[in-house]
């Protein structure tokens, strides 16, 4: 069941760890899992379908996988001469491809065109900044380097082969282990296929770069034909984490062996600051290197491309459409915090995840409810246990705006009819969504043409991402009107250009789409008019086309929330759970200690007051409240005293009316209080709220001050 395992690649940051054994086939085991899962987390338990949690979870996986596959992995058949080669291409890596090409080329040419007259041969260093924004990037570079022979067959000179070693900061605490990792990384692959046993004491040490030299000598001699000698590429991952002095020595040693050893160092800077090398390393080391800097493309354009090619692409139909709230959060997070593709994917994934909290989303794909046939589904829905679910479904399906005012009675009379009406709503939603996307595409295209024609005023003050989110809110009316106005003012030639461009836009889309028919008709009508028209009345054509466009936009760029049962397929204005991605741990811990009632399961469901009396609090909270009242240092004995008073009052509240215990009981009770005190104290200690200082006997120090209660 784990996503990391069987579905998508293992590098993704969110994995689901199942709490039960999924593989067991016994029914009761299944049921146990269901129950546990449902108990774990279920915000809408009161109106959920029995077992709905697991069904929705499967649906979530399918929906996200569809979306993820679209974003990450896309197969493209590329014919290359006679052979057809299948390549896995990502939207993201398609964006990166030019840069990867450039880096690979500069690795290949690292020792080719050396400027004559330089005082020494420099060690080529390729610094890739911002590599952490996309983890696949370095892997792309490495795999391209490893398999370059097949790739660049069209070049005249075959590029040199590459041997690659990866170094990580954890392998390199000192120069000896660094050199060992570097040398053995290459030498462990014997050069001519046969490995030779080296003697531990009388052979060259495994961290001796001379060993690499010997190895390379054999490798170079064993290469046959006109192939250029192979290159040795060293990847330094997370370069900022490496110890500076170690890297300095490593660079020094390596540079004294070039060009006999054609070493090339690829430095992966995780941050986006290309000047890191220059601010960190001294000139004496930099002068040994020839640093080429590349920056991985990132920023809003990247995000824009990803979103435009998934949720706003007519060729792709996601199960769940992302709403403006999530989109806004995504944009904001991307610009404000971390412009990484992984982060964006994570947000989209969490959006999906959250969307499937809603019990009704069980209908996202079909109305089988996790069963195998419509009859079974009807039966399942007729189950009295799911009455709350059914009620909510009916009330959502036929809210007052859906019912025509003059209608009498229910539009459907049985469960099967209800399911059929859901299917109808889904088809309708999909249809409207496609038309919406098309209209949005047309709008962008018209804007682009008008911009290209030189009308700078068509430039709206919204970024493409903002336009997307505005369009989902139905808030592009002003922009649409403005474009229509501009269109009406176009001359004959320019109208012609616009029409042709729109025509080619439609032609680029897959032909079978019915939605394009309407646009095609509109275009054809205008084109016909244009052909027949003479100069005088030609402005009328632009006028007419503008009117048509206005009507078209108004009809199709709609607020998706007006559609029936939109909650199932559209996340709409649901806010993104931002605390999941960007939590404030200390603030959460403190507020949990101050107001445990809003975190603990509500056992007595009375209206939660602002501040509970102290005896109602858990032990750690009692201690914490006293902690806040104390000074800089806390006397532990006093603390214990006040705690035992609170516990005493708790006891008297709980056992009101009970008699006093005997002396032996009293002794036991004291032990009990002490134990509880110690446990609570250790809890606070573990959280880091207490600092032990030897300064004052029996005192501990506060670490948190100024808590607004």
């Amino acid at each position: 069941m784990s996503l990391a395992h069987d579905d998508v690649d293992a590098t993704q940051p969110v994995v689901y760890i199942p709490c039960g054994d999924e593989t067991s086939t016994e029914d009761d085991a299944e049921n146990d899992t269901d129950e546990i899962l449902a108990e774990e987390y279920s915000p809408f338990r009161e109106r959920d379908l029995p077992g709905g949690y697991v069904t929705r979870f499967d649906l979530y996986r399918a929906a996200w996988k569809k979306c993820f596959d679209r974003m990450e992995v896309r197969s493209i058949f590329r014919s290359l001469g006679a052979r057809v080669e299948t390549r896995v291409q990502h939207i993201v890596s398609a964006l990166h491809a030019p840069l990867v090409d450039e880096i690979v080329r500069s690795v290949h040419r690292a020792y080719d065109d050396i400027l004559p007259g330089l005082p020494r041969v420099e060690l080529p260093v390729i610094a890739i900044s911002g590599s952490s924004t996309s983890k696949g990037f370095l892997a792309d570079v490495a795999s391209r380097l490893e398999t370059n022979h097949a790739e660049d067959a069209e070049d005249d000179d075959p590029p040199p082969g590459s041997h690659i070693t990866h170094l990580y900061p954890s392998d390199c605490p000192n120069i000896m282990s660094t050199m060992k990792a570097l040398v053995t990384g290459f030498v462990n692959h014997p050069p001519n296929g046969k490995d030779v046993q080296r003697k531990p004491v009388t052979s060259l040490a495994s961290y001796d770069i001379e060993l690499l030299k010997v190895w390379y000598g054999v490798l170079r001699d064993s290469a046959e034909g006109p192939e250029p000698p192979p290159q040795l590429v060293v990847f330094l991952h997370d370069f900022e984490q490496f110890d500076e002095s170690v890297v300095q020595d490593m660079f020094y040693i390596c540079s004294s062996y070039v060009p006999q050893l054609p070493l090339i160092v690829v430095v992966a800077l995780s941050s986006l600051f290309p000047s890191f090398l220059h601010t960190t390393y001294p000139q004496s080391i930099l002068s040994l290197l020839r640093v080429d800097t590349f920056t991985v493309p990132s920023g809003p354009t990247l995000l824009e491309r990803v979103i435009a090619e998934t949720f706003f692409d007519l060729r792709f139909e996601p199960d769940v459409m992302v709403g403006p709230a999530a989109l806004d959060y995504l944009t904001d997070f991307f610009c404000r915090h971390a412009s990484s593709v992984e982060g964006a994917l994570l947000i989209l994934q969490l959006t999906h995840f959250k969307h499937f909290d809603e019990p009704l989303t069980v209908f996202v794909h079909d109305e089988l409810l996790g069963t195998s046939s419509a009859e079974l589904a009807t039966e399942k829905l007729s189950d009295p246990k799911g009455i709350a679910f059914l009620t909510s479904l009916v009330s959502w399906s036929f809210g007052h705006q859906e019912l025509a005012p003059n209608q009498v009675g229910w539009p459907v009379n049985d469960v099967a009819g209800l399911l059929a009406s859901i299917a109808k709503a889904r088809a309708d939603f999909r249809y409207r969504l496609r038309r919406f996307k098309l209209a949005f595409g047309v709008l962008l295209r018209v804007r682009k043409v008008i911009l290209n024609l030189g009308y700078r005023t068509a430039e709206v003050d919204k970024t493409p991402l903002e336009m997307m989110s505005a369009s989902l809110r139905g808030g592009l009316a002003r922009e649409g009107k403005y474009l229509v106005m501009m269109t009406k003012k176009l001359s004959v030639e320019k109208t012609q250009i616009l029409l042709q461009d729109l025509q080619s836009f439609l032609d680029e889309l897959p032909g079978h789409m019915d939605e394009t028919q309407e646009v095609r008709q509109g275009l054809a009508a205008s084109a016909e008019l244009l052909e027949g028209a003479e100069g005088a009345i030609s402005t009328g054509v632009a006028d007419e086309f503008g009117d048509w466009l206005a009507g078209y936009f108004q009809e199709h760029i709609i607020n998706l929330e007006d559609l029936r049962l939109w909650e199932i397929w559209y996340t709409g204005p649901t806010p993104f759970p931002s605390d999941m991605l960007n939590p404030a741990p200390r603030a959460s811990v403190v507020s949990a200690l101050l107001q445990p009632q809003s975190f603990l399961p509500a056992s007595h469901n009375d209206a939660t007051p602002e501040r509970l009396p102290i005896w109602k609090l858990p032990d750690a909270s009692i201690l914490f409240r006293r902690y806040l009242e104390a000074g800089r240092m806390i006397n532990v004995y006093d603390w214990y005293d006040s705690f035992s008073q609170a516990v005493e009052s708790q006891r008297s509240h709980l056992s009101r009316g009970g008699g006093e215990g005997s002396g032996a009981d009293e002794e036991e009770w004291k032990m009990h209080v002490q134990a509880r005190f110690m446990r609570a104290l250790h809890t606070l200690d573990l959280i880091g709220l207490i600092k032990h200082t030897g300064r004052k006997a029996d005192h501990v120090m506060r670490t948190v001050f100024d808590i607004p209660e």
Partner: protein
Amino acid sequence: MASYLEQLEYLTKEISDSFPGNDFLISQLITLVTTCPPTFTYVHDPYTTGVTASLVNALISSLSAVDAKSFVPEDDAIPTIASAQVNAVACFTARLFYDTTLNRLAKWHPLWDDGCENWPGGFTGVRYNDSLDGFLHGLRVLHAQLSDDEAGRTPQRSRLKVKAQVRKNTVKMVLIIERAERIKDSLPELLVPLTRLAELSKVDIHTILISQSPWEELKPLMGAAVDPFHLSVRPPSQEDTRRILVSRFPTDGDISAAPHAYHPALLQFYAQYVDALCSICAPFTRDPHELSYVAAAQWPSFVAPVLDAQRDANQFHPIPEDVRMRLLRVFLPSFTAALEALLPRRMHARTWSQTPDVTDGPASDEKGVEMTISSLSTLQKYILLAAFLASSNPPRTDMRMFARSRETRSRRRRGGGTRKAPQRSGSTPAKVPQRLAGPASFPLDRMSAILAVLLEEYDLESRVISKEFTQLGEYTEMELVRVHTSGAITELSAAHLLLRVSPPDRLDGPPMYKCGISYDVALALGRDLRVPMLDLIWEAG
């Protein structure tokens, strides 16, 4: 004998030609190595260590290439020299040092098929790299072996000892250690033995240490080490530098070739070019390495107009004097630009030589600023601004600059109070603005407070605030303690845009930081975020 001396003289001249200005050092070294020297020499060169090291290497290896026997076959006095050059940085463990030294002295090249075995010393399975004793033993065996080879006899065990004794003096080993200052850190236990290696190993071995630091800094305490024979290298004069650079003109010497940038006919022009370059760059650097780097980077674009004029010629026409002068005058400003970009390696020589318009250099600085700014996220920009303000404003002014509550504002408006009499000029030195004095360090919570003010005043409108935050400033306060804010601070300090001055393992008290961006970058950031930085920076006085 005479011919050997001639050979030495020839060699001296040759080395002097390729390393001009080092005649004294060369003659000293040759004398030292070829006669009966003190066994430990210390070459101290604070300026151009790299050049000196390659000089010594070239010298010793050409000396060892001289075949002593070809001159006076019967004379024992001419030693054959076996040399090893070792880099103290590369030999970071004792074992590595022993292996490298012995292999190089014995000219032994490990073979992959033999399992990369080290120099075996005539016996299999003996190791010389386990301790100093083993190493000394190895040196003795090696010396005997070399002497034996020298005698041209097959190493017959029975005679080995006798012969070795007879011809003992004919093999002389030289061990050169570069970057010797590193021995003190990486192999401190080897320093004393190295100074008295000949004494310990009882073979004729001469140790030369080359280092940037003076011997006094390396010298072990307690006087355990022998005092070396000192050789100091003076800084190269401008004339020497010039000669070095000219001697490195990378020409193939084919005078009949079609014109290209490294045509031998251009040598004289190159000398003029180097003259101009040296005179401009002399105040900044005299390192021949650096100067030749700049020269190599600049030359292709410098000579391009000349080559353009002669594109179709198959022979090189001499360049008229006025053209040269004009060219030099046009390129003069670009020399400094090149130096500014190339010396700190903000650009490397190849890119520089390919950049079409090299005459306007200073633009690169602004480009760097732009690059840095564009790669930052919004929050990081705010953090940097806050850090800059915390670093440049004195803490006591924070209340006045940033406090935003009503009563402080009114208090400020009221102002007045007792005004101090202006101090007489001359009694105290004029106050230097903080931005000229460098960034001051500040605790993290002070920066957070300033960051909160900045976010609250300039960023709040652009945010969508959920309804749960009802109080004024509550949202921003929450924002400050979020994971991504701390993450951004850590990331900035990893990138050295914020400098952490307190040790990372200190948990006591807030961590201290310094700002790592310059005044210009801060102003540019302020413009980017529409924060009026000039109003927020406290100007003293």
